[in-house]
């Protein structure tokens, strides 16, 4: 148990050395268009289509269809 706690504490120390604060004026790359998950409309529609086809569900994603996977 003692070893476990020691290892846990040491791993926390190692992990926290990687913490960095991104200042407000350094967020240019994060605000870039390429960082958007929905930047490719066609890919988003295709992903939604695959998801509702597999789950046999639809709605809430802006994609039409009956959930049969045939459209």
């Amino acid at each position: 148990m003692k070893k476990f706690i020691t290892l846990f504490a040491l791993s926390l120390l190692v992990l926290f050395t990687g913490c960095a604060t991104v200042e407000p004026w350094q967020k240019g790359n994060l605000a870039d268009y390429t960082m958007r998950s929905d930047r490719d409309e066609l890919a988003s529609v295709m992903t939604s289509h695959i998801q509702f086809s597999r789950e046999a569900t639809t709605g809430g994603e802006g994609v039409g269809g009956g959930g049969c996977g045939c459209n």
Partner: protein
Amino acid sequence: MSYKIRTNRFSIRKLFWAALSAPIFCVAVQANDGWDVDTELPDLTSFNLSGELPGTKGNVVLVDFWASWCAPCKASFPSMEEAYQKYKDKGFKIVAVSVDSKAKSMESFVNRLKPSFSIVHDSEQRLVAAAGIEVMPTSFLVDKSGKIRFVHLGWHGKESAERLMAEVEQLLGEEPS
């Protein structure tokens, strides 16, 4: 023997708390006070800015930090232009400090909008780091005696525009101390 175990336990506990408090310590060390209300505006010429700085002495000055990737910053430009046009003859100056890492990004926005007030580039991001801003955009309104009087955090459309106009008018009506 029992003493030894207690010592070990104590060391582990100390290590554990040290690990947990490490990020708090890091944040405390990195915290920057920055510019505040009722403090003197530092000499902007000592920050290696590119672009032409207007004469600030004896004028009401708005120092605005913006970037081309920041939508609210860009939204504030038409209102700043309006305020500048309205009050420039009475001694109102605007220094819009771009914190873009690339000059090209800044230039493409400036060339499109063509603001008539002063635009400078803080390519090394030294001035913005000294100002210690917390949100983009942040602007500091400085009175005729060079003291920061108002700080605007973010841009909230009409509300911010009206506040800016009222504050500029107030400061222009004051005598330098």
